[in-house]
């Protein structure tokens, strides 16, 4: 068993105990990346030199007793839409192919303050727009469970890296399911916190009112520990919320006695794969056996969540992405005549098809004459969805649902039909619209050997409830979910890289 087979907390414990050093951990991660990257392509940037330097500094501070946290010395992969000072931050887009930020995102800075070591930047859908990591301008990422399948998206690289044991932890971002859905596809545990819990300062915005940074890990305990490290009230982010407490690991208890678990019937109807359905309901039964009370109910408004989500996120994206114009940083077209031609060509050449589609969609819904009909209406739907969840949480503590309608699709199957791809976000977008926390954890493999993810949603600021329920379920399922090791060994095929 290698060091990368340890969970983050196990690794951190050994480093603290002096059994191994932060440098050992980083070297093990680098070796694992070196071995697997050719097939997986989870990373866009790996920073061996920087990571070893950080490790040395962290090791010193662990030895002096300055760093006491459970994650000190643990290597972490960071999604490429989180700014890292002096290190490429491309958002998997050609338009930022050379961008090195002058500052570090608050979530990453918090992680580093806790002794976490940034080992590199992970692949993603371009600007987090996509559900498969196939819209990346720098090549696809493959699912470690089956290289013919996508890892999900947009945080596909972050989830694949953790699933493949390239490193024990990673950071992702979730605007409509971008942490929970790829976690589900890759058999890892991911959490989208309540909006305002983790600072968005330094997260390259997609849909500002929906974006949240969150942890991706191998199990619920690691996930809670990483959330504890990155969550903070940050004055630099006006939407940041000062929470009463930031202690999430204390919720790691095997106890669901009396916990009311809501099962929204409308999440289990048409369009849901039968194997996924059975796995999720089977897991619910396990919780019931341990004392939880299952309550079926109708959430309502489900068909409206996707259109509302795509209107709001695209509207915000069309404005957020306006700054990428070839003037201040990033890609500028080689040839142009005058200002407008420079804008047009830089943006036409710099953005990929999916990003352009959403910029156009967003610009359209904000145009005069359409604003009221689309954008304002979508905001009303958003408010109604929040109300529907408020009502649901009146009679239940957590909501249990699938994270995605199916397991990971094959590479190339989704982009042909973007509308169908959008519809696959059906179980995740509502949490973003309502600002709720959501935890995705693996509960079973389907008959193709692909992981099935289960989602637990909590009311705002109720992360501890979903962590407790998730931890209990994980234990009930027999502890750690297996690694896709065998698959990785068997399939020696090279990853087919797309070129820009």
């Amino acid at each position, binding site marked *: 068993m290698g060091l990368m087979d340890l969970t983050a907390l196990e690794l951190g414990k050994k480093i603290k105990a002096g059994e191994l050093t932060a440098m050992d951990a980083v070297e093990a991660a680098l070796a694992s990346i070196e071995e697997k990257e050719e097939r997986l392509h989870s990373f866009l940037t790996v920073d061996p030199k920087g990571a070893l330097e950080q490790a040395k500094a962290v090791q010193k501070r662990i030895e002096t007793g300055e760093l006491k946290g459970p994650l000190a010395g643990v290597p972490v992969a960071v999604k490429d839409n989180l700014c890292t000072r002096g290190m490429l931050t491309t958002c998997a887009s050609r338009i930022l192919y050379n961008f090195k930020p002058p500052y570090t995102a608050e979530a990453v800075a918090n992680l580093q303050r806790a002794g976490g070591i940034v080992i590199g930047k992970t692949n993603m859908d371009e600007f987090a727009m996509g559900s498969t990591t196939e819209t990346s301008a720098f090549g696809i990422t493959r699912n470690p469970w089956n290289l013919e399948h996508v890892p999900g998206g947009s945080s596909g690289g972050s989830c694949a890296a953790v699933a493949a044991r390239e490193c024990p932890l990673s950071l992702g971002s979730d605007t409509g399911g971008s942490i929970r859905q790829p976690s589900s596809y890759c058999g890892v545990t991911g959490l989208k916190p309540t909006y305002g819990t983790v600072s968005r300062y330094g997260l390259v915005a997609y849909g500002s009112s929906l974006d949240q940074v969150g942890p991706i890990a191998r199990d619920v305990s690691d996930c809670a520990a990483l959330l504890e490290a990155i969550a903070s009230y940050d004055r630099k982010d006006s939407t940041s919320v000062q929470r009463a407490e930031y202690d999430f690991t204390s919720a790691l208890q095997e106890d669901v006695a009396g916990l009311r678990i809501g099962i929204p019937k409308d999440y289990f109807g048409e369009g849901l794969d039968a194997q996924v359905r059975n796995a999720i309901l089977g897991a619910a039964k396990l919780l019931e056996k341990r004392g939880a009370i299952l309550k079926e109910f109708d959430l309502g408004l489900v068909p409206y969540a996707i259109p509302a989500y795509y209107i709001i996120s695209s509207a915000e994206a069309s404005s957020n992405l*306006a700054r990428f114009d070839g003037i201040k940083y990033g890609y500028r077209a080689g040839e142009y005549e005058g200002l407008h031609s420079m804008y047009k060509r830089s943006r036409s050449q710099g953005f990929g098809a999916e990003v352009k589609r959403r910029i156009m969609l967003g610009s359209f819904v904000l145009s005069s004459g359409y604003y009221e009909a689309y954008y304002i209406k979508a905001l009303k739907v958003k408010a109604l969805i929040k109300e529907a969840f408020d009502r649901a949480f009146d009679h239940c503590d957590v909501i249990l649902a699938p994270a995605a309608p199916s397991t990971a699709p094959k590479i190339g199957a989704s982009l042909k039909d973007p509308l169908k791809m959008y519809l696959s976000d059906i179980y995740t977008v509502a949490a973003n619209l309502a600002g709720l926390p959501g935890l995705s954890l693996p509960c079973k493999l389907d008959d193709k050997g692909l992981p099935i993810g289960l989602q637990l949603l909590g009311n705002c600021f109720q992360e501890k409830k979903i962590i407790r329920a998730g931890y209990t379920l994980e234990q009930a399922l027999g502890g750690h979910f297996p690694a896709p090791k065998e698959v990785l060994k068997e399939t020696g095929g090279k990853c087919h890289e797309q070129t820009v």
Partner: protein
Amino acid sequence: MSRQYETVIGLEVHVELATETKIFCGCSTRFGGAPNTHTCPVCTGMPGSLPVLNKKVVEYAIAVGLATGCKITRYCKFDRKNYFYPDNPQNYQISQLYLPICRDGGVEIETPAGKKVIGIHEIHMEEDAGKLIHDEWEDCSLVDYNRSGVPLIEIVSEPDMGSAEEVIAYLDKLRLIIRYLGASDCRLQEGSMRADVNLSVREVGTKAFGTRTEMKNLNSFKAISRAIAGERSRQIELLEAGKPVIQETRRWDDNKEYSYAMRSKEDAKDYRYFPEPDLVPVSISQEWLEEIRARQPELRSEKLVRYKKEYDIPEYDARILTESRSMAELFEEASAICGKPKKVSNWLMGETMRLLKEAEQEPEDISFTAAQLAKLVELADTGAINGPAAKEVFVHMFQEGADPEQYVKDHALGAVRDAGALRETVRQVLEDNPQSVADYRGGKEKALGFLVGQTMKAMKGKADPGLVNQILRELL
């Protein structure tokens, strides 16, 4: 021209607020500075950066709103205005469209026909853009983001003005109020106050408005007056020729005294406004509002009433003194020290104004203190120095901040009040001018003046004229 036309004018006035730091980041707002030195990830639109609202901006906006009789929007929001231009690093401007901070106010101006209220439709907060610099030698354009994110308020008037005079009076009044509040220095030339003029004409007696144009690039009151006159005649000429006025934005060229069409309504931009998701709505509590209200300085209209009661000075003086808050405060403080408001007023109205004009300065630039002015009034009033000497002292006080007492001492300007020495000089003067002595004694009062002058001349101006007069009469 057979038909009679009237002009209808509304103004959009942008005012740069006098905060230390920018509206959404901690960078300095100072004017000047090497390009791109007062910048950070926020005001240069770096990916991932986020705005944080400067509270002081809200307070200044509320202060201006209260002083202009506006209703304060207790729950206000920011919106994004989307447009591409390189001086705008995010390619959107954070502004207010749906819930501006102030609404429905007005200011009173004086017109030849009497007092008139110009309505204020709204006041909203927004961020300024950077500056483009076109380098003709290199054939390229550069951007300086130092000004990017400097806080602005935009004051939108109702179309209540009918002439250039009313526009100037309105702008003057706004400037006076805002300067009193310390919210901005409102300098048109430096761009800390900018006015866009919306103008249309209609036949006298018609109710409906004509088609309006918007004029930009007006950098002085004179340019505004000329632009209004120019645009009025351009529109009337069009109408007289049976041609329509096109709704468009025009740029005034003050050198050529002509405006050029920039863009018409047909290609007007769709700014795709939507609520700014990176900022939370601003809730203005009753306490906060009361705090700001309590801090409001006494405004000019209030001062005028009080001056009438408290100081025995003509209304004309009071009006001029209160045109600037710093001048009014100088007057009040100096009067309080020496107890001679009329004398203080005379110095301010006369010499001070004259020297300010000469130096092309504003009352805010005055460097002498109220204590110095009070001291000078005392010295002159008690006869310690005579008139010409006092003026000399004042010039040095104004220009170098000289202390009046010290200056008098150092330059031996003290009036000679030694009666013995003076008597000697007067005797000599009488001896040298027998004709005048005879004239005076013969009943020509005028001759006394001549003799006083001669004595002063002999004393090199340092004699106390009252004492000279007294001794002359005695000896004669």
